Structures are given as C-alpha cells and as structure tokens.
C-alpha cells in the first residue's frame, strides 16, 4: 500500500498533547480486569467435574498414589488457600506447572503463543489488503451487480464455519492439487531453532498459506464491509464533491481523497476484531494441526490441566484486552475530534 495510513494528515496539523494519563488509567483498569478474569477462571475450573488426577495417571495405579498426586499439586488444600497461592504466583507472573507436561506453564505458552499470533496476524493482513481495496472498489461500484456479488462473497465466507472451509481447502489445495502442506507448521525434521529460522523460512511460509487463507476468508467481511460503508459516507462529503468538480480523475479521487479518510473506522475496527477473533483460532488450529495456543487450551480443558488451561486463558484474554486498548487509543490518536 502506498497510501499513508488513514487520516494521519488530519492529526498532524492539530495533534493534541497526547494524554499519557488516559493510557495509564486504561492500563490500570486492564490489570484489574486481568485479576478478575483470573479469579473467574480459577473458580470455574474448581467446579469442573472430574478429578484432575484422573487424566494424569494410569487407571491401574493405586488410590494412595492418586492422593499423593493431589497433595503434590496442592489440590488437597482448601479452595481459599489454593486461591491465595494461585493469585500470589500470578502476581509474580508464575502460572504454575502444567500437570500434564510437568513443565512451567509459561514455557508451554511461550512455545505456542508466537504460532497463534503469527497465524492470526497474517490472516488479518490478508483480509485487510483485500478488504480495504475491495471495499473501496465496491463503494465505487455501488448499486451494481458487482457490488452485490462482492457483498455476497464476503458474507458467504463469514457464514461458513471455518473448520468446514478448512477441511474443504485441505481437500482441494493439499490433497487434490498438492500445492501446499496440509498439516502442522513446518516440515518434518526441519532443523531451525531460532525465531528467525523458524518463522521466516520458506518452509514455514508454505505451511502458513492454507490456515491463513482459511482464517483470512473468514475475516474478510469486516474490512470489506466497513470500508465500503465508510467510503460511502466519506464520498458524500463536500470535499469529495469538490474534487469531482475540479475534474480530478475518478481513480485519483477514490484512492487519494476518499480512501484515506475512510480508513479510520476500518483500522480501529481491525484492532477490536483481532481481539474478538483470537478465540476462534481454536478451530483452525485443530483442523490444520497448527501448534498454537488455541489447540493447547482445548486439550488442557479436556485433561483438567488447570494450570495450563488457566494460564492460556489468561494470556488469550490479555491479548484481547490489549487489542481493545489499542483500538481505543488508535481511535483517539487518529481522530482529532476526540478529547480527554
């Protein structure tokens, strides 16, 4: 994209002293929210049926052994004591040890989070590039069959369950055509260990294509339709009429004048939408065997692996909150009319 990001020229001229206080206040609220979410998730898991030791041990081991396990993980303590320990650890950024992997939760999550974020951001990028241009184009073509087709296209993919589209995409592009790998994040035995080697390699990118495509098609409707509506709104503004009156070429009016101003809500909605969409990654990760946090949370829940499920949930929830915060700040930053 060669265009500047939305509305920046508006802000440049009359940027207010940016309110650090506002962000600080929001961050504070966020911390309180994280603590509340953590409390909720802690309590939820404690009401779960099934003893966590059940999935930890072979059924053939004796009852005393299960008792010993309960004690090792502190599960024999009262709820209140467990809660105090849990919150105390949490304040030190310690999510405990996964029952299942016998490994610090932070490390399990640390392994998985990048995979989830990269997949999601790639899909968003894909959806945004196509959506912003497509939406602008649709606004230009308003009232035509092409516009209706565009709307229908984006809504059909918003209506299709991602797991189902994923299965179809695998059948077509991986099994029938053999263009891309269908499963996992890298080829078997791939040697890379550093972040760059793993996430910037051609091998990784090939694995990324299908899951990102599937997620991107689902996301597509957001930027497309918001961009379209926003464009329609902007295009009725006076200065666009002026540009037309001056006899500027259509294309130039569309992209130079209208689009950059119409982008504001699209960008803001983007951050909000990332937050809302991150949970939905679960399905794509399952279908594509993508080693991300979403798949981990499903497994942790089925295994009653409290610490891991709690930790993953809190991290995902934090990502959502950060995205919401970014949306609000972006909005404030981009729209000069907002004052605090």
């Amino acid at each position, binding site marked *: 994209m060669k265009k500047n990001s939305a509305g920046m020229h508006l802000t440049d001229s009359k940027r207010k002293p940016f309110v650090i206080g506002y962000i600080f206040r929001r961050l504070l*609220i966020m911390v309180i*929210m*994280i603590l*509340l*979410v953590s409390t909720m998730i802690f309590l*939820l*898991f404690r*009401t*779960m049926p099934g003893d966590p030791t059940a999935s930890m041990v072979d059924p053939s081991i004796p009852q005393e052994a299960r008792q010993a396990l309960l004690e090792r993980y502190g599960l024999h303590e009262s709820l209140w004591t467990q809660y105090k320990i849990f919150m105390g650890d949490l304040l030190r950024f310690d999510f405990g040890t996964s029952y299942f992997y016998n490994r610090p939760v932070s490390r399990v999550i640390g392994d998985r989070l990048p995979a989830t974020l990269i997949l999601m951001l790639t899909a968003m990028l894909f959806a945004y590039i196509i959506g912003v241009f497509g939406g602008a184009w649709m606004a230009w073509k*308003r009232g035509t069959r092409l516009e*209706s087709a565009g*709307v*229908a296209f984006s*809504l*059909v993919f*918003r*209506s*299709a*369950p991602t*797991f*189902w589209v994923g*299965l179809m995409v695998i*059948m077509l592009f991986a*099994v029938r055509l053999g263009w891309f790998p269908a499963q996992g994040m890298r080829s078997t035995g791939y040697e890379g260990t550093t972040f760059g080697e793993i996430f910037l390699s051609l091998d990784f990118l090939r694995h990324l294509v299908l899951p990102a495509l599937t997620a991107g098609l*689902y996301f597509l*409707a*957001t930027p497309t*339709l*918001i961009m379209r*509506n926003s464009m*329609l709104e902007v295009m009725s503004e006076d200065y666009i009429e002026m540009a037309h009156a001056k006899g500027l070429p259509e294309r130039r009016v569309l992209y130079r004048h209208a689009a950059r101003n119409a982008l504001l*809500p699209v960008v*803001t*909605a983007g951050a*909000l*939408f990332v*937050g*809302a*969409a991150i*949970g*939905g990654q*679960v*399905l794509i990760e399952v279908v594509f065997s993508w080693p991300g946090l*979403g798949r981990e*949370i*499903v497994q942790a*829940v*089925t295994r009653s692996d409290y610490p891991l*499920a709690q930790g*993953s*949930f809190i991290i*995902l*929830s934090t*990502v*959502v*909150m950060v995205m*919401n915060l970014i949306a609000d700040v972006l*909005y404030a930053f981009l729209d000069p*009319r*907002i004052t605090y």
Partner: protein
Amino acid sequence: MQKVKQLIQYITSYIAQRRGPSRRPAGRRNNQSFFSVFLSSLKSDRLALIGVVLLVFFIFVGVFADSLAPHGPRDRHYHDEGGIKRLESPTWDHPFGTTDVGRDIFSQVILGTRTALIVGFLAAVLVTFVGTVVGIVSGYFGGMVDTVLMRIVDFFYAIPFIPFVIVLAAIMQPSLWNVILAVSMLSWRTVARIVRSQVLSISKRPYIKAAKVAGAGHLRIMFRYILPNVVPLVLLEMAFMVNWTIMAEASIAFLGFGDPRVTSWGQILHMNSVSGYSRVAWWWNVPPGVAIILLLVSIFFVARSLEAVVDPRLRKR
C-alpha cells in the same frame, strides 16, 4: 461473525457519542413504518429478497422437521437382502446418502435445521433481552450505574469467546442448553453497548425531557418512550446474534463439546470427522456445511436490508 455489523454499529455509535447526538440518526419511533420501509426495500434489494425466501424456507423446514424427515436420525437402513446400507452416495431413497452405519443423512440435516433455529433464536432472545435491559438502564441513568454496568461489559469483552464456551461446556455436562447459556453469557455485552449509545442520544431528546418534567417514572420513560426507539436496532442485533449462536453451536459440536444425543449440523459434521470418512463421503459433510452457510447468509442478507431501514443514510445511496 456478526462482528461486522456490530463493529460498524459500535464505531459509528462511538463517533455519534463523541460528536454529539445530531450525527447519529435514531431509530424510527414507529414500528409500522419500520416494517413497511423494510418491505418496500425488498423490492429494490435483490439480496434481501433472496435472504427472505431462504429464511422462510428454513423456518418452514425447521417447524415441520418431524413430518418432513422421512426417518429417525438414528435408524439404520438395510438392503432388501439384509446388509446395512453403509456409506451410500445419494439415491432416491436417501437424497443425501447414508452414514457409515446406514443412517439417513437427509433426515439428520432436516432435524438439524430445527436445532439450529431453536438454538439460534433462544440464545438471541436471551442475549438481546439482557443486553437491551442493561443498555437502557446504563444509558438512561448514566453516572455510577453506567460506570459499573459498563465495567461489567468491559469484563465480558475481555473474555475470549470460543475458549470460554469450551470451558463452560466442559464444566457442565454436554447439552444444548448449556451451549445456549454459554453463548448468552458472553454475547449480551455487544447488545448492551450498542443499545446504550443509542439510548444516550435518545435521552437528550426534548420529549424525553418533557416526560421527565411531567413526572413520568423511570420505568415508564425507559420502556414506554425509549425502548420503542431502540427496537429496530435491537432487532438488527438479534439477527446477528442468531447467526453468532448457530455458528458457535456448530463450532462447539465440531470440537466435541456438544451434546452427542442431539442432532445438529455441527454434530453431523463432528460424527463425520470422527468416523474418518470425511474425505470419502462428500454427501455427508457438504449438505450440513452448505445448510449452515445458506441459513446464515440469508439472515445476513435480511439484516443488511434491516440495517438500511435503521439507518436511513444507507438507504439513500
């Protein structure tokens, strides 16, 4: 998924809220004109027409599912010579073919329609009810009440949707009602926010002030004067909530957290994937998938048209 609209609403209402009430066209006060405008827009909007036709079709199938479904969802079908009709591609007897143990997929898809509609509408009603009440109360009273309620809304906004539903589904035994409950618990937040910003602009109107001066009670003002104004918006939100819920139910069922004893589209797809025949039996996974798409698309199309009614600016173009 209804996020599209939700977000437009959210953003525009946000803008409206910041810019002052004049920018935001309020919903129409009169429901009759609301529907008549909607009906007349059908004539010009082909997508909406398609949507209405499809939706009526699905509702018909859903309501008469029991009579329309030729067989029970678990009945096993046998050949005349005795063998089970295993994994048969579509025939006249079984328009969508059979499963690996000889069950009629056509009947399952029909019964699944009813499940989808029930889940969708029940959850949507629940969500919109709670969301609307919270939104109206919050927007009307403002101040401390507003702050507290909006913080609660913020709290629910911070919860990742699918993981939360999975946790809830795992805590409570798998059942359709729990999916409805789980979806409702998280989705009212959106409605509440949108309704609230709408109410904020409405309560500044002269006639509301007049009503207050005339001594009308809070309840009366809220439900007699404000509610009718947000109804169109709420209806629109409800449409998106129906979609959101149906998708959520399908996703949950696909992941194996649904109730295996209830025939739903997600459950059919789940059984298909569990059975291991997903790549062989296209007749087993294509019909439920297409059914989900068609139902959701039809609701989107209708909602788009509703949206033009709610927001007259969209209509002009």
